[in-house]
């Protein structure tokens, strides 16, 4: 599969009062054309920052280095003006909380129409027609009415559909969905995921789906990147990851998702917490929580090494070499 987006050695650092904090540290992954790639991990592992880094939406205090290759250009080298042309048109994004992601005092029609206004030449009437078409496409009933409505009149699921309509308005090549269903009811979650999957096929988009829910991954993704403490610890196709996770952290995630039934019927969990950025040890960052921990794990950090064509893993147990720091 040809790749449309290649992330190599992405590091993102935030400057603060107490010095700089590196939140994303040397992340590599590729997104294939027409692929749905999952990025999973606990809260605070750098998933969202990775996705915001791609679009350079980090604000004044965030700074990324590395390479983000998209259509023969490195996004990290583009000017702010060039990035504005890419955001929404080539790569668009939907966010976790649809409740607060829409402007409360502008109509739905205006907010979706704005996307078209920025990136395409269209008259007001054409734009309206297109927006109504988009609303219908994302399964919103009474599209003409909703066009004139304000966000507070819509339910959470409807708002997320509006966000999706906005995101696909200019037929982007890549859609980044940052926990798109986390804030929604379970029944609505499935609908929204189905919608995303349908649109992905119809528009031949590539999707980066950020989630902490392996159920969502199993349902949606072709491949998965597992992140821990700002690093990629494993990449694999979804089937392989769910059946035989390699990295102890990935194992823990799969077990705690209780997709695998276990005998004592208790929910598994991984003891401990993700270390805070700035408090990473010089060894493997998962060592303190790992049940297979070796002496070498505490001394030095393993590199991300290739196990087979589709699988990479960052662990001393799988023949990693010492990472270049």
């Amino acid at each position, binding site marked *: 599969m040809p790749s449309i987006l290649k992330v190599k050695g992405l590091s993102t650092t935030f400057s603060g009062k107490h010095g700089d904090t590196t939140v994303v540290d040397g992340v590599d992954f590729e997104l294939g054309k027409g692929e749905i790639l999952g990025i999973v991990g606990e809260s605070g592992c750098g998933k969202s920052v990775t996705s915001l880094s791609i679009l350079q939406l980090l604000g004044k205090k965030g700074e990324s280095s590395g390479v983000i290759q998209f259509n023969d250009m490195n996004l990290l080298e583009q000017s702010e003006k060039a990035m504005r042309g890419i955001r929404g048109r080539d790569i668009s994004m939907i966010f976790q909380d649809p409740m607060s992601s829409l*402007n409360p*005092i502008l109509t739905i029609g205006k907010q979706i129409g704005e996307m078209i206004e920025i990136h395409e030449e269209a008259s007001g009437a054409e734009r309206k027609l297109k927006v109504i078409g988009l609303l219908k496409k994302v399964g919103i009933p009474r599209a003409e009415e909703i066009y004139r409505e304000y966000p507070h*009149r819509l339910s959470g699921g409807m708002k997320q559909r509006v966000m999706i309509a906005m995101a696909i308005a200019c037929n982007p090549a890549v859609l980044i969905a940052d926990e798109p269903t986390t804030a929604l009811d379970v029944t609505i979650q499935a609908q929204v995921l189905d919608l995303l999957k349908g649109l992905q096929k119809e528009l031949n988009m590539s999707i980066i789906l950020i989630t902490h829910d392996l159920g969502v991954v199993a349902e949606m993704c072709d491949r998965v990147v597992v992140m821990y403490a700002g690093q990629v610890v494993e990449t694999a196709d979804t089937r392989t990851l769910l059946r035989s996770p390699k990295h102890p952290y990935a194992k823990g995630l799969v077990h705690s998702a209780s997709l695998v039934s276990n005998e004592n019927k208790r929910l598994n969990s991984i003891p401990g917490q993700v270390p805070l950025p700035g408090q990473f040890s010089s060894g493997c960052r998962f060592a303190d929580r790992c049940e297979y921990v070796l002496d070498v794990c505490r001394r030095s950090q393993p590199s991300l090494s290739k196990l087979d064509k589709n699988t990479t893993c960052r662990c001393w147990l799988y023949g990693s070499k010492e990472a270049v720091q």
Partner: protein
Amino acid sequence: MTYLLNRIFSGIIVIIGISIFSFFLIHLIPGDPVRMLLGQNATNEEVARLTTYLGLDQPLMVQYKDYVVNTLQGDLGTSIKTGRPVLTEILERFPETMKLAAAGILIATVLGISVGVISAQYKGSFIDKLSMTFATLGVSIPGFWLALVVIMLFSVKLGWLPIAQGTGIRDLILPAMTLGVLASTMISRLTRNGLVEILSNDFVRTARAKGLAERMILIRHALRNALIPVVTVIGLQMAALLGGTVIIEQVFNWPGLGTLAIGAISTRDFPLIQGTILFMGVVYVTINILVDFLYTVIDPRVELSAKGGK
């Protein structure tokens, strides 16, 4: 609609309250108001005549009823000093006050919002700190002091503008500037803080992810949200200014409602005092209802929250 009807209804209640207050004002003054009006040398006959003329010999309820009936017919009584109808006196002065208030609010709004936007955009910078220090100063500086300072500076020292002579454009500049600068400080502070808060909202991130330029985000998405509370404050300040900026009008010798009220008080012209109070009250309430109406235009959520707080 229920929202606005509610507001209008409560506005009417307030006006009735004001009318009762202004009516009883004359009875709250210790001693015989008529004797105070005429002075110690007045004969009993004169006192009796004025008492009858003012209707003060009637029972209280009858007096109030007459007062309400007359007021509803647009008759606010007759000024004791000038002998002219109170309403005529007020309507003569009101345009001058309106001129001053409008100019003051215009300056306050333009200045306040601009300073607020600039401060928010350069949050934490020297410009931000400087303008917010001025905003704090502006809230604590008394109006009459600033008025004297601008007179000293622009009229006496520099000689650019006249001191308290007429009501032309050149005469308007100094009082309007004084009012405007003072009123702008609260507006700029509110705009700045509102914007800073709004700019950290998720929907601003959505706007950025669309590829919108920062300037457009500020104008289209942030400013309108941030201005919702600012509109209230502008409305209240407008109402306060229309009620006669008593001190500023006095300092600049501006022939508006404020100077009329002060004149009426110092000459104990009761019908004129009563009429001015009632008029100011009605203006204040009307402006407030207009602001509430404006709310529904700016913020689509308001209409809903009035219908049972959903």
